[in-house]
């Protein structure tokens, strides 16, 4: 395994996954804080930012993620495979699966997870991920809740959590050492009309810029998109018109489970038209429950109660706005099940308006078109995000990521002195982000592959070497799953399937198999109870957090 020396004082950044030629996902970053102490010795500590999944990928895996080998510590051991110190912490920028979904897999593979620092909603969704995987409670990481403005101290670095607009609880990280200052955006955009959580504050961002930012590590997903994006307030107005035009009909909306701000907009549309709001579908229910756990007043924001599907089932359909899952035509999501008239699915017929306020991404377009056709076969009127402007309603969807205008604003506020490093995008998206930075007179650091180690210090920012970073491919073990009792799907607890059991292949950085399904077997012991021996090796790693409260 290659190893890049990190002994020069300063801050080192390494993207371990996320800059992938084969699509976005699996975001994970390593930061090393190297300082020269008063006695001339060198101290070195490191932490991770995000640890997410890349879903699918066409190789037969449920997901791929950055290998925990050499980074995390195996349970019962004190250092990562190959030596070096364990990470001090895992800082999560937000709750999407491509940023936190690999934590449960690392635990499943027999690794301990370092203490996690996250906002309340992100922490709740990590909690949800561990519950869904059936991970025994005593194997969970320590989870520390932070708010916007809180500062964690890791060695000589101070890391501030900076609220950004993307989803509830989303934050950027401002990482400062004596030698360097990095602003790691996480996923972001600017929309002051989002209702839930803390908003991005341009005044705070300007102040951070005034204090000095050397490098911005920056989300590229939608930077190639020009023009003014629709705000959530505009989307809400348009949804209100669609619901208003559906008087006397059932209205069913299909969204992604994590789109809670869109759920709020639908709640406002329902309320404005004298309907109640109900939700149906596990991931949507999980997100609503996470909001409740995080103290987000989602009902207050929506202006209406949120009913369960059980509470709504006896109400006249024309008095309800039912929100379910399936905007990406996932095989067992609510809209898809209705389209195929599966048992227990929401009934959809000629008296139903279906609204899908989410554009289909390229990888789901075929399935999406097929689902819409099926819904129309049932007689439903279907208003998709693609059709809404043609129908005169205007936009009912907007990407959760910064478009060109947003990125330009961010760079103008932060005024990075040295460089912008585009991440979280395919080749074209990353290139567009770099081009935008250069158009503003800011050099860009275009990383061609994951694993590059970038040193940021007094002399600037530069790649000092490249380390091989492997991936893990996870697939469900059919042999194990078949041995487990699987209750028939239906109502209530009887439709719970046992948590999936995975086997893991080691892949190289481009996704080719290096070691086939003979990594440590999935520990069935992670599920019912903990194995013997020490479980936590991070007893001394608790960070000091200066709260902003």
């Amino acid at each position, binding site marked *: 395994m290659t190893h890049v020396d990190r002994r020069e004082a300063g801050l080192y950044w390494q993207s371990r996954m996320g800059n992938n030629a084969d699509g976005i*996902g699996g975001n994970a970053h390593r930061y090393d804080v190297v300082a020269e102490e008063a006695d001339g010795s060198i101290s070195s500590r490191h932490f991770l930012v995000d640890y997410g999944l890349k879903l699918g990928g066409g190789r037969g895996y449920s997901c791929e993620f950055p290998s925990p080998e050499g980074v995390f510590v195996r349970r019962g051991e004190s250092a990562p495979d190959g030596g070096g110190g364990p990470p001090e912490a895992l800082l999560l920028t937000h709750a999407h*699966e491509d940023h936190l979904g690999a934590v449960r897999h690392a635990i499943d593979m027999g690794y301990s997870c370092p203490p996690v620092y996250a906002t309340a909603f992100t922490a709740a969704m990590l909690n949800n991920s561990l519950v869904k995987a059936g991970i025994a409670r005593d194997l969970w990481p320590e989870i520390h809740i932070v708010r916007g403005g809180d500062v964690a101290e890791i060695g000589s670095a101070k890391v501030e959590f900076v609220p950004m607009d993307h989803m509830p609880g989303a934050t950027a990280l401002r990482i400062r050492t004596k030698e360097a200052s990095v602003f790691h955006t996480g996923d972001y955009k600017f929309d002051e009309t989002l209702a839930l959580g803390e908003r991005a504050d341009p005044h705070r961002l300007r102040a951070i810029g005034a204090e000095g930012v050397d490098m911005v590590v920056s989300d590229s997903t939608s930077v190639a998109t020009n023009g003014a994006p629709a705000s959530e307030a505009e989307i809400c107005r348009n949804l209100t018109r669609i619901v208003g035009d559906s008087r006397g009909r059932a209205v069913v909306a299909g969204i992604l489970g994590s789109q809670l701000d869109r759920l709020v907009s639908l709640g406002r549309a329902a309320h404005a038209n004298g309907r109640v709001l109900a939700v149906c579908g*596990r*991931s949507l229910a999980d997100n609503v429950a996470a909001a409740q756990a995080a103290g987000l007043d989602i009902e207050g924001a929506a202006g209406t109660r949120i009913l369960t599907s059980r509470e709504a089932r006896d109400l006249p359909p024309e008095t309800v706005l039912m929100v379910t899952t399936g905007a990406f035509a996932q095989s*067992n999501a*609510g809209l*898809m099940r209705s389209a195929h008239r599966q048992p227990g699915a929401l009934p959809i017929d000629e008296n139903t308006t279906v609204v899908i306020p989410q554009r289909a991404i390229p990888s789901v377009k075929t399935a999406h078109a097929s689902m819409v056709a099926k819904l129309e076969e049932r007689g439903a009127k279907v208003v998709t995000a693609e059709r809404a402007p043609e129908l005169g309603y205007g936009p009912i969807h907007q990407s959760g990521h910064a478009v060109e205008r947003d990125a330009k604003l961010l760079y103008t506020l932060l005024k990075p002195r040295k460089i912008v490093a585009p991440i979280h995008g395919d080749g074209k998206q990353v290139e567009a982000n770099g081009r935008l930075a250069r158009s503003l007179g800011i050099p860009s650091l275009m990383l061609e592959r994951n694993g590059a180690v970038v040193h940021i210090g007094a002399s600037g920012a530069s790649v000092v070497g490249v380390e091989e970073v492997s991936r893990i491919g996870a697939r469900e073990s059919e042999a194990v799953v078949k041995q487990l009792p699987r209750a028939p799907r239906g109502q209530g*607890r009887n439709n719970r399937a046992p948590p999936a059991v995975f086997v893991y292949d080691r892949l190289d950085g481009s996704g080719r198999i290096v070691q086939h399904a003979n990594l440590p077997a999935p520990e069935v012991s992670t599920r019912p109870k903990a194995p013997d021996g020490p479980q936590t090796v991070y007893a001394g790693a608790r960070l000091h957090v200066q709260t902003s409260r």
Partner: protein
Amino acid sequence: MNWDDYEGLGRALHEANPDVNHLTVADADLVRLVSALPGFADARIRPDATSLTAVRFAWVAAAEGDDDGSPYDGSA
């Protein structure tokens, strides 16, 4: 059962309280409902936020089941 047995508590909450809104139940009410479950041994122990949230999700799982299929990669 104790606070760490989140799956068992979730199932028991669903069976005992089918008409309670499991999506928006307040923390204090959740603690009260768990403490009232027969066979619950930790009624005198105040749960930490992580344990309480785990029980909340286990209740959602028991009530909603797995029919959903919405693992979202976040890149939309």
